[in-house]
């Protein structure tokens, strides 16, 4: 029996989410049912479900519309992000395979939470209703609060978890406040209805307040300055694969939600309508403009002095949030496309860099200090080369995908007339090279630990590195396919108006 107002078709379009949910529950059951020594099997169970979800995703790609009574969209934009999340989740699970053994943590609930976080992200990317979006965000966030504290004997992990929880909850409160104001102004939680209701009149200062709260709430989630304070501590304390997943998945999902809210719900207020500031009309791009500049600059400057690899990557990820915001400031399909491209590229290079940190974690070595990398070129040359590629890509050096991503972002900014923003972005990229190259210097030039035993790489981790390197290089050399996909996806944002399932 179908719920009223639903058809089988609705569930067909929800298949990827349903498979991920089923996978999460199956992992939980498997954890209870499997014998003690066989828990390593769960890794492959989780991957199988993610793979199945990706296949289901392929079936629904290319459609455009909403299902489930207009609460949920099936468009290229959602499919693009869901693909990104599935890839990131799969790589995270692969990374965790040996890491959990080393930490002595149980894999069952861990993989369950990873899949639940993935489910939350998928909902965030596809929701076109404030309620749906918020529930998705909350599902992802709660999963991460627990995952961050998963290594219980580690005090750093505990501290990171409680910090993430407190600040995360606070930011969700701000976001919710903003959403409730939007609801109060329009009488609807549907983004489309909000857009049409607000298109006629002007929201006035209440709308400005709502937008400010939404910007602050989402700013927390994407770790943009000045809402970034949690990032370094959380990144440092969390289990490394989870750090990777947060920095990639959570950030991409939050960007997806941000794009949904602002491009679908408040398209009329891009440049003006929220009052005036310094005599200029105020639109929401203004907030992101400021956020983008301070995030890039402060993130990069703070990263310069870090000696801990995970903290350095945390600040670098803050800076990257700044770069990504350029695409949103541009507020054109071109800008959105550039942001999408960069998010996909960022997934591969950032996950790859964290995979190296995971590799350095051995029985009694935490391995997240820069000096732990000393002499890696001798101890594990393949990993050192991979790390070199990731660092160059993060810095935006030409043959890699990072360059293509940054290039398209800056191009979009210039096209929209934000030449200054593009220049600041380029300058920042130059600054960032200093600390990315510093990592390389440690691996090749500093040899004091060259005599240390070679670093052994598990097959699962090798697979992660191969995928990440391939992604970083192929997308750098042949970005056409990605650009086309992102272009097609970005163009569907805000266009999914007809219902695919039952007419509502």
């Amino acid at each position, binding site marked *: 029996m179908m719920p009223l107002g639903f058809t089988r078709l609705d569930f067909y379009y929800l298949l990827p989410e349903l498979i991920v949910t089923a996978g999460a529950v199956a992992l939980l059951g498997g954890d209870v049912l499997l014998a003690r020594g066989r828990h390593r099997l769960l890794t492959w169970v989780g991957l199988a479900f993610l793979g199945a979800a990706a296949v289901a995703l392929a079936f629904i790609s290319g459609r455009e519309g909403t299902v489930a009574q207009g609460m949920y969209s099936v468009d290229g934009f959602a499919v693009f992000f869901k693909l990104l999340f599935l890839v990131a989740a799969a790589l995270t699970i692969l990374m965790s395979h040996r890491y959990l053994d080393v930490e002595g943590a149980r894999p069952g609930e861990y993989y369950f939470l990873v899949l639940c976080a993935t489910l939350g992200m998928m*909902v965030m990317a596809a929701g076109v209703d404030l309620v749906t979006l918020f*529930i998705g965000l909350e599902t992802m966030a*709660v999963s991460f609060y627990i995952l961050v504290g998963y290594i219980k004997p580690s005090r750093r992990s505990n501290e990171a*978890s409680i910090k993430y929880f407190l600040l995360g909850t606070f930011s969700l409160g701000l976001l919710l406040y903003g959403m409730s104001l939007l609801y109060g102004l329009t009488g*609807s939680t549907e983004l489309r209805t909000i857009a049409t209701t607000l298109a006629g009149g002007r929201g006035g*200062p209440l709308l400005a*307040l709502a937008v400010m709260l939404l910007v602050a709430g989402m700013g927390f989630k994407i770790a943009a300055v000045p809402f970034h304070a949690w990032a370094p501590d959380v990144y440092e304390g969390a289990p490394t694969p989870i750090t990777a997943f947060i920095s990639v998945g959570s950030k991409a999902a939050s960007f997806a939600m941000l794009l949904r809210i602002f491009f679908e719900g408040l398209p009329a207020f891009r440049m003006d309508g929220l009052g005036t500031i310094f005599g200029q009309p105020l639109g929401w791009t203004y907030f992101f403009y400021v956020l983008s500049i301070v995030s890039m600059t402060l993130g990069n400057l703070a990263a310069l002095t870090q000696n801990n690899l995970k903290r350095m990557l945390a600040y670098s990820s803050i800076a990257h949030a700044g770069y990504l915001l350029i695409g949103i400031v541009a507020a054109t399909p071109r800008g959105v496309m550039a942001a999408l491209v960069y998010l996909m590229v960022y997934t591969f290079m950032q996950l790859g860099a964290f995979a190296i940190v995971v590799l350095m974690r051995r029985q009694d070595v935490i391995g997240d200090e820069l000096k732990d990398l000393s002499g890696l070129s001798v101890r594990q040359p393949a990993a050192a080369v991979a790390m070199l590629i990731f660092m160059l890509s993060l810095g935006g050096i030409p043959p890699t995908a990072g360059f293509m991503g940054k290039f398209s972002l800056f191009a979009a900014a210039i096209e929209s007339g934000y030449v200054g923003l593009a220049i600041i972005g380029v300058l920042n990229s130059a600054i960032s090279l200093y600390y990315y190259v510093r990592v390389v210097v440690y691996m090749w030039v500093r040899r004091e630990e060259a005599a240390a035993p070679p670093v052994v790489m598990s097959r699962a981790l090798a697979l992660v590195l191969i995928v990440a390197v391939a992604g970083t290089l192929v997308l750098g050399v042949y970005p056409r396919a990605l650009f086309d996909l992102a272009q097609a996806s970005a163009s569907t944002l805000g266009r999914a108006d007809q219902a695919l399932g039952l007419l509502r």
Partner: protein
Amino acid sequence: MLDAIAFYTLAALILAFAIAVITARNPVHSVVFLVINFLAVAIVYIVLGAEFLAMIQVLVYAGGIVVLYLFVVMLVNLKRGPEAHQDPRRQTGAGVGLAVAVLAELTAILAYTGRNPLPAVVPAASARGPGGNTEQLGWLLYTTYLIPFEVASMLLLVAMIGAIVLARKVD
């Protein structure tokens, strides 16, 4: 008119008890004020004609969650203030400043909005189902809001599993 009186009385009560929650020296008193606060909110729901929501508010928040708060507060000895209170001026100065700024901002916005009233908001999507308040809520949850509702069930499962994971002894 009667509705307005009821609302403003309750709003005043809610605010007063909210302030009492954060100013009470004794954490157990704070929790008790919180319960009263929740009960007042429940009455607001009743005034709005949402009796199902009101009862759920009492049942879940006032009756369930806050009892657990009380549990923790009673078991954890909170007689001694946290160490951050060593230098009270350091934090509170900035805090009060910010609070005043936000208050001023909100007042300005309210004053502005009061002078330029917004166009009347369309009432929330009228429920399509049959029957009273409870039926309508159930109807909406299982039709329009089915997806968020089901995802919320996963969210609660995550929270449950998470609590167990975090509370379990390290083996």
